[in-house]
């Protein structure tokens, strides 16, 4: 277990460093943010002072050294735009996005697992075809557009839910449904394929030969073995949501999550903030992967951590 943790953390470090380095090099390589930070009429002296103040006049390697030294102390510098610790700014909207993504994942699992199982039990049935077709449609439709369509229908036309912003449960419905469509389609298909694989296994015949009810055979015997694949896919989707899909969804619904912050930070060319966000997201994903790893023994007793 200790070896496993060490290895995992080492790999995690590589990922976090790799991504941070990438973003660092990208942000520093071209473009001077000073231009956007100062009013149009700023003098050359003012620009030079700000450039110096931000440390942008140092050589790239020196900037990198400063950056790494800072990060090692948990200090990403001050957000140029918000004038406070970049890490604090980056962490503030994180719970909201995790909550939204979590709701969307639960929502998609609630539908995906039964749908996938039923499709696998009766392949090529009407239900299977409907499920396959709709999950495919769900994946092909751009989700930001789907969000706008839902607003058009359920907010503007039917007035069931608010168009944007935060508040009571009504505010969560449209964003989480929009966000859930893509994982719903993909997880349904994973459940279906995994269950089809498992239902072909001989141990399923054994379970039936014992006289177990079909529901029991499917849920206890087949589903448990399909669990590894389902959990892996769900975890992966959650990761994609937190740092990918929410960018557009939060923009569409005007939500104060990390996705909106990313867009703002990039719009403001706020380098420290961008780096802090990247770091936070990388940590989230690494953490998520560890959680997925740790869940494997629940489904597959052969997995041992070393």
């Amino acid at each position, binding site marked *: 277990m200790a070896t496993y943790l060490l290895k995992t953390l080492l790999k995690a470090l590589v*990922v976090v460093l790799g991504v941070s380095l990438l973003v660092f090099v990208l942000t520093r*390589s071209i*473009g001077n943010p000073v231009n956007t930070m100062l009013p149009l009429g700023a003098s050359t002296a003012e620009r030079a002072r700000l450039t110096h103040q931000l440390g942008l006049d140092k050589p790239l390697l020196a900037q990198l050294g400063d950056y790494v030294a800072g990060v090692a102390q948990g200090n990403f510098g001050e957000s140029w735009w918000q004038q406070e610790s970049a890490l604090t700014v980056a962490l503030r909207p994180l719970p909201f996005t995790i909550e939204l993504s979590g709701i969307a994942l639960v929502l998609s699992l609630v539908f995906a697992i039964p749908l996938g199982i039923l499709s696998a039990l009766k392949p090529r049935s009407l239900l299977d075809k409907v499920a396959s077709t709709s999950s*495919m449609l769900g994946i092909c439709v751009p989700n930001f557009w789907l969000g706008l*369509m839902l607003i058009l229908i359920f907010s*503007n036309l039917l007035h069931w839910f608010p168009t944007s912003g935060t508040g009571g449960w009504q505010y969560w419905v449209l964003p989480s449904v929009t966000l859930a469509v893509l994982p719903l389609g993909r997880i349904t298909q994973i459940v279906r394929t995994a269950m089809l694989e498992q239902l072909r296994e001989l141990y399923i015949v054994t379970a039936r030969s014992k006289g177990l009810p079909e529901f029991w055979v499917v849920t206890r015997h087949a589903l448990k073995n399909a669990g590894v694949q389902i959990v892996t896919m769900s975890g992966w989707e959650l990761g994609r949501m937190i740092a990918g899909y929410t960018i557009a969804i939060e923009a569409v619904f005007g939500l104060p999550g990390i996705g909106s912050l990313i867009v703002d930070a990039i719009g403001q060319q706020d380098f420290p903030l961008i780096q802090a966000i990247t770091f936070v997201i990388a940590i989230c994903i690494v953490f998520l992967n560890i959680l997925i790893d740790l869940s494997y023994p629940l489904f597959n007793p052969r997995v041992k951590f070393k």
Partner: protein
Amino acid sequence: MANSTLVDTDTPELRESRPRFYELHRMTSKMVKDRLALYALIFLMLIFLSAILASIISPHDPTTGDIWNRLKPPSFAGGYSGHLLGTDQLGRDILSRLFYGGRVSLRIGFITVLFSSLVGIFFGLLAGYAGGKTDTIIMGLVDIQFAFPGMLVALVFVMVLGPSELHLTYALAFNGWMVFARMARSLVLTFRDGPLVEAAKAIGAKPLQVMIRHILPNIFAPLVTLFVLEVARIIGAEAMMSFLGYGIQPPSSSWGLMIGEGRAYFPMAWWLIVFPGMMIASTVLALNIFSNWFTTAIDPLQKGQSG
């Protein structure tokens, strides 16, 4: 990525459990009957034609607005009859903009994937064929990039380079090469120790020769399938980037940008976003159906497995 930290990762269950990035592709196999593939192909051809012939078939100039006729609904929805799909906030003809926007969206899709596939295939072949440290480093890079969501990196990329079509292409290609590398590598590994390459080596072919003459042709079909799927994915990604304002810039237009621009007006002018969105969705869908048909059509082994 963190999966590989387990000791017992090589059980079939775990190997199988890694996310299937192209699940969609398997999915199509279930619903595809050849008739569907045919419709998809016809649709794609129409889209391509309309993109190529945009300047000829467009009823209006896509960039010149008629300010007195702004936000007119489509003619079938009781709008001004001169504009089949209505006009946008500047009075520009939506249909013409769809044709021109499709040109941009498709161009970006194809050129991006051309970039990413060339780079990816090169590194994949290199990793698979060279093995050892080269393999470890390349695949390590692939793993890192896979672990991290590409959209953020693409946004930073465009922010740094400045938004333009070419820079968008770079940014998206930077996020797309890994799949090709992974696939090319795995296929090489399958073929490298197979009888085919063994035979080629036996008659004295050089490594590079083996790679180009003997391995590449064998992995052609799966790569084409992946190519089409990637084009579909990139069209979606481009739409999202443009929607957020970090992709195509006005006065040029793409389907995603049309949605982004129309957003401010859409509660009252739904046609501004409904039509471009439908174009994106149906093109992506058609590409997926087509790629699936291509796989089953070219590989008889796959045919038996589908469905």
